[in-house]
C-alpha cells in the first residue's frame, strides 16, 4: 500500500480526494489530508453567499463523515511546517511527522497584500476564507453601531467585485478601487468594462479606476486612503482583493524548483522537480502561469490522481481561462482570447446601452472560426459560443448572427443541435466531462435520466452552468435511441394527458369505461382514473358525483381525508368576505359536530374531524345557510384571495374584494390538472400575495396588471406579468384564455409554474397566445370557459339531494353503526386525532 499525503484541503485538494476515492485502484493507497483551516474544504467560488446562508456547512464540499466513509484521514487545523524530501517525511506544527510515498501540494494561494503604508491598520481585511468573512462581518456590526457605513475594496478584478458585492450585501456603501484603467483587466476590454461599470454604479456602488493607492490613513482604524494623484477617498473599512500569491513557502524551503514570481514548477504530469511530489491548483506553476480558476485546478487533480495510479493522463497543453459568472447581479463572460487585435482578426461588437448589454466576438479574418469573445449584461449565448470556439467549429455564413440572433425568420441556434458537437467537445469544464462521456453513459444503458447522468458523470454538479446543455444532450440522446421520453399517463393509457384530452373531446367519450375500451387496457389505477376524471370535468363540467369511483378518494367523498380517516369541511368564502351571520353558522355547525376549526391560508375556515356519515348532515346545514362547496378537496379552483381594497383601505386604487369575488364565482368548480389559486390586490403593496398564485391581479393606475404562473409550496415562484393596465372585462377574457389553455395542455399534476417552464417559448409565447391571439383560438377558449361557467353546479347540493349518491357516505353496507374505532385527544380547548 502506497502512502499519499495531501497538503491543503481547499477545492482542488478536495477534488483530488474525490477522484482518488472513486479510482478503481483506490485500495492500493492510504490517504491522509492536512488542512490548516478548521473546516473541511468548502466552496470558495460561492463564498459571498456565506452572508445569506444560515450556516457555513452549506458551503462544505463534503462533510467530515464523507472523508471517514471513504477511508480518508482528514486532519484539519493542522499545519505542515516542513518537508524532508530525502526521508520522504512531512512535519506538522506540533512536531509530529508523517511518511509519504507521494506528496501532493495543494496549498493554494494567499491574497496578495500590496506594500502600502498603513496596511496593518484596524479595519483592513483580506477576502479569502470564511474566517475573513466573519471578521469583516463583526467589524461591520461595530461600524454600524458607530453610525459608519463606508467600505472600499481594493481590486476591481473578479474576486474584488465578488468582495464588493459581499460588502454591499452587508449593507455598506461600497466603493471599488482599481489600479488598471478598467475593471476585470484580464477578462474585459475597455468598452465591456465601461458597460459593467455603469451597471454596477446604477446599483449605488462607485468605481475608481487608474488609482494607485499610496497610504492608508487613520488614528487607530482606517479613515481614508491617499492616492498617488493627490486625491483621497474616505472609508471606514478596506477589503484587499488585489490578486493572489501561490503558497509555495514549503516548496521553497525544501528546495523544489519554483518560479521567479512564485509557484511550484510542474510538468504536464503535475510532477514537481522531485518526482515523488506533485503540485496542483493555484500553487502549481504550469506553462509559466498560475491559474486561479477551479476548472484547471480540477483538471490538475485528475491528472495527478491518474499519474500516481500509473496512468498516462497529461495536462492539456494550453489552459482555457474562459469564464462565465454573475458579478454584482450582472452576467459577465469571457472566453478564448478576448482582446486579440491584429490583421488576421475581425472583431464584431454589439453594444446596447439602454439594455446594458455588450458583446464582442473575435473571428478569424476568413470567417472560419471563433477565437474569443466577451459578454456583459447578457451571457445567455456563452455556452454556444464557447463550444464553437473550443471545438474550432465552422461558423455560420453571417457570424454576426452569433451575437445578434438571426433577425427575421425562424430563430435558430447557431450551433444547431447539441448532437452536432464532436464527441470530444467538453460540455462541463469544471469536471472536464465531454459530450462523448455523457452520451455513452446513456447509450450504454447505465443512465436513463438527467439526474442519473449527473450522478454518474458529475457533469453540471459544480457550477451548474452547463445544465441546459446536459439536459438537451440527455433528451436528444434518448430520442436518438428511439426512447422519446414520452410522458404517458400510466401503464393503462399510452398517451400523454394532452393527447387523452384531445381523444376524449374528438370522440365524445363520455365515461372511464369507454375510454379504457377505446384507448386503454386493464382496470385503470389511481394514476389514470383521476386524470380522466379531471379531463371529463374540464370538457363536460361534470361534477365529481357523476363518476364517483374514478375520482381521487378526496373527490369521491367531496372532503379532505385527514390523519385518522376523518374529513375536513371547507365551504367557499369567495374573496374571503363573510357576513357575521354566516360566521355564526360555521361556529354553530362546528360546535354541534364537535369539529376542530382553523383559518386556512386561503382566507376561509376549515372544520376538521367530521366522520364520513356526518358529512351530508353538516353540508345540509351549511347549504341551508347559503354556503357552497369550496372544492378544497379537488384539483380545481381553490380560492381567490383578496386584500380589503379601495372600499376601506386608504391606499387602495381599485375594489379588489369585488373583483376577487367576481373571479372566484366565475371559476368556482373549475377542475384542472392541479389545484388553482388566485389573488387580487388593490395596490402594489400586494397584501393579497397575488404574485404567489397561479394567477394574480394587482391594481395599478389605469387598470389591473395580470400576473400568471406563480405558486408557493416547495418551489416558490413569483407569477410573471402577462398584461398591463387591463379593465375588468379584458382581465377576465385573458384569464379565460390562459386557464383553458393551461387545462388543455398541462401534464397531470403539473401546476402553472412548471407548465410555463416547459412551455416552448415561455412567457413570450404565452403572451402571444393569450394577448395577441397568435393561434387564433382566443374566442374558442373563451367560449369553452363560458360553457363551463354556465354548467356550474354545487356538487354537495347535488349529492345530498340524491339518495343514490348518499349511499357512499354510509360507513358500513351491512350495519347502521358508526365507526367506533376513532379516537381523539384534547388539544388547546379543541381536539385532534390520536397521534400515529
Amino acid at each position: 500500500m502506497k502512502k499519499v499525503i495531501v497538503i491543503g484541503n481547499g477545492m482542488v485538494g478536495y477534488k483530488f480526494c474525490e477522484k482518488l476515492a472513486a479510482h478503481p485502484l483506490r485500495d492500493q493507497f492510504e490517504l491522509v489530508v492536512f488542512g490548516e483551516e478548521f473546516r473541511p474544504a468548502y466552496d470558495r467560488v460561492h463564498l459571498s453567499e456565506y452572508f445569506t446562508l444560515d450556516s457555513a456547512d452549506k458551503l462544505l464540499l463534503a462533510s467530515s463523515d464523507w472523508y471517514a466513509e471513504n477511508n480518508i484521514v482528514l486532519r484539519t487545523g493542522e499545519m505542515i511546517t516542513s518537508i524532508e524530501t530525502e526521508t520522504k517525511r512531512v512535519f506538522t506544527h506540533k512536531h509530529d511527522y508523517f511518511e509519504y510515498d507521494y506528496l501532493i501540494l495543494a496549498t493554494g494561494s494567499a491574497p496578495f497584500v500590496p506594500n502600502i503604508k498603513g496596511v496593518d491598520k484596524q479595519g483592513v481585511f483580506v477576502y479569502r476564507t470564511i474566517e475573513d468573512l466573519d471578521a469583516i462581518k463583526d467589524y461591520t456590526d461595530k461600524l454600524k453601531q458607530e453610525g459608519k457605513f463606508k467600505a472600499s475594496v481594493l481590486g476591481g478584478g473578479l474576486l474584488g467585485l465578488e468582495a464588493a458585492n459581499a460588502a454591499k450585501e452587508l449593507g455598506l456603501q461600497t466603493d471599488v478601487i482599481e489600479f488598471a484603467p478598467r475593471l476585470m483587466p484580464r477578462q474585459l476590454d475597455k468598452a465591456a468594462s465601461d458597460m459593467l461599470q455603469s451597471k454596477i454604479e446604477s446599483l449605488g456602488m462607485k468605481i475608481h479606476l487608474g488609482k494607485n493607492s499610496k497610504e492608508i490613513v487613520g488614528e487607530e482604524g482606517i479613515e481614508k486612503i491617499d492616492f498617488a494623484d493627490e486625491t483621497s477617498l474616505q472609508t471606514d473599512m478596506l477589503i484587499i482583493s488585489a490578486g493572489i500569491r501561490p503558497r509555495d513557502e514549503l516548496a521553497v524551503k525544501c528546495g523544489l524548483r519554483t518560479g521567479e514570481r512564485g509557484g511550484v514548477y510542474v510538468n504536464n504530469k503535475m510532477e514537481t522537480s522531485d518526482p515523488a511530489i506533485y503540485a496542483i491548483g493555484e500553487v502549481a506553476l504550469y506553462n509559466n502561469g498560475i491559474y486561479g480558476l477551479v476548472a484547471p485546478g480540477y483538471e490538475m487533480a485528475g491528472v495527478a490522481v491518474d499519474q500516481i495510479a500509473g496512468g498516462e493522463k497529461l495536462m492539456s497543453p494550453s489552459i482555457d481561462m474562459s469564464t462565465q459568472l454573475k458579478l454584482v447581479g450582472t452576467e459577465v463572460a469571457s472566453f478564448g482570447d478576448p482582446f486579440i487585435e491584429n490583421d488576421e482578426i475581425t472583431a464584431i461588437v454589439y453594444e446596447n446601452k439602454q439594455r446594458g448589454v455588450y458583446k464582442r466576438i473575435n473571428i478569424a479574418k476568413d470567417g472560419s472560426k471563433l477565437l474569443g469573445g466577451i459578454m456583459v449584461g447578457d451571457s445567455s449565448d456563452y455556452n454556444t459560443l464557447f463550444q464553437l470556439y473550443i471545438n474550432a467549429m465552422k461558423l455560420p455564413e453571417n457570424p454576426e448572427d452569433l451575437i445578434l440572433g438571426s433577425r427575421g425568420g425562424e430563430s435558430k441556434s447557431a450551433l444547431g443541435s447539441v448532437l452536432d458537437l464532436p464527441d470530444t467537445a467538453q460540455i462541463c469544464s469544471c469536471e472536464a466531462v465531454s459530450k462523448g462521456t455523457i452520451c455513452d453513459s446513456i447509450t450504454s444503458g447505465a443512465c436513463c435520466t438527467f439526474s442519473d447522468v449527473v450522478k454518474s458523470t458529475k457533469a453540471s454538479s459544480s457550477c451548474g452552468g452547463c445544465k441546459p446543455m446536459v439536459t438537451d444532450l440527455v433528451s436528444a440522446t434518448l430520442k436518438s435511441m428511439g426512447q422519446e421520453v414520452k410522458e404517458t399517463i400510466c401503464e393503462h393509457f399510452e398517451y400523454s394527458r394532452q393527447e387523452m384530452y384531445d381523444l376524449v373531446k374528438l370522440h365524445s367519450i363520455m365515461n372511464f369505461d369507454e375510454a379504457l375500451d377505446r384507448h386503454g387496457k386493464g382496470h385503470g389505477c389511481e394514476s389514470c382514473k383521476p386524470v380522466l376524471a379531471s379531463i371529463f370535468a374540464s370538457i363536460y363540467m361534470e361534477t365529481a358525483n357523476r363518476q364517483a369511483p374514478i375520482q381521487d378518494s378526496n373527490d369521491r367523498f367531496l372532503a379532505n381525508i385527514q390523519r385518522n380517516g376523518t374529513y375536513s369541511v371547507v365551504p367557499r368564502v369567495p374573496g374571503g368576505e363573510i357576513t357575521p351571520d354566516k360566521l355564526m353558522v360555521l361556529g354553530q355547525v362546528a360546535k354541534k359536530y364537535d369539529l376542530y376549526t382553523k383559518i386556512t391560508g386561503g382566507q376561509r375556515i376549515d372544520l376538521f374531524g367530521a366522520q364520513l356519515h356526518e358529512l351530508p348532515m353538516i353540508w345540509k346545514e351549511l347549504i341551508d345557510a347559503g354556503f357552497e362547496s369550496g372544492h378544497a378537496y379537488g384539483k380545481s379552483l381553490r380560492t381567490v384571495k383578496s386584500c380589503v381594497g379601495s372600499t376601506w383601505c386608504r391606499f387602495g386604487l381599485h375594489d379588489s374584494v369585488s373583483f376577487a369575488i367576481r373571479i372566484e364565482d366565475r371559476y368556482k368548480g373549475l377542475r384542472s390538472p392541479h389545484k388553482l389559486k388566485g389573488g387580487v390586490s388593490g395596490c402594489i403593496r400586494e397584501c393579497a400575495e397575488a404574485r404567489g398564485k397561479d394567477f394574480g391581479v394587482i391594481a395599478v393606475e389605469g387598470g389591473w396588471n395580470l400576473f400568471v404562473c406563480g405558486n408557493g409550496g416547495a418551489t416558490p415562484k413569483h407569477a410573471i406579468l402577462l398584461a398591463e393596465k387591463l379593465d375588468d372585462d379584458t382581465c377576465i377574457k385573458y384569464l379565460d384564455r390562459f386557464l383553458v389553455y393551461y387545462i388543455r395542455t398541462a401534464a397531470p399534476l403539473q401546476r402553472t409554474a412548471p407548465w410555463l417552464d416547459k412551455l416552448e417559448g415561455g412567457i413570450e409565447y404565452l403572451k402571444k397566445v393569450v394577448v395577441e391571439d397568435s393561434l387564433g383560438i382566443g374566442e374558442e377558449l373563451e367560449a369553452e370557459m363560458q360553457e363551463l361557467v354556465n354548467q356550474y353546479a354545487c356538487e354537495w347540493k347535488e349529492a345530498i339531494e340524491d339518495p343514490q349518491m348518499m349511499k357512499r357516505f354510509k360507513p358500513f353496507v351491512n350495519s347502521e353503526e358508526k365507526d367506533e374505532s376513532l379516537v381523539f385527544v384534547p388539544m388547546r380547548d379543541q381536539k385532534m386525532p390520536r397521534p400515529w
Partner: protein
Amino acid sequence: MEELLKNYQSVADQHAIHWIKVGQTGDFPENAGACVKYNAKQIAVYHFTRTNSWYACQNLCPHKMEMVLSRGMTGDSQGIPKVACPLHKKTFSLEDGSNLNGEDYSIATYPVRIQEGNVYIGFVD
C-alpha cells in the same frame, strides 16, 4: 396497535368455514370499495366490473393503522388487482395482500362468493 393487526389473517377460499352474507350486489359500488362489519372486524369489499370479480380485505391500512382501505381507489398493476390507500397511496394486491410498492406491509384478504345476487365473505372465526 399491533393487536389490531392480529385480528386480520388471510383466509383461503377452500379453508373458509363461515360464509357470511354482507349484502346484495347492488349495495356495493362498481369499481370501488365499501366497508362491511363482521363482529369486531372491518372488511373492505371491492367489485371489479370489467372482469366481474369481487375481492375482500381488511379495512385497516397496516402503514398507519387507520380504517381506510375501503375508501381507496382500485385498479390493477400489470394485471394484478389492487387498492391504493387514500392516506399515502400505499398499494396492495387484492389477490394475496402483498404490498406492491415493495414495502414490508401486507394485508389480509378474504374470499368472496356471489350467490343469487347476495355477497358472501368467507371467515374461519
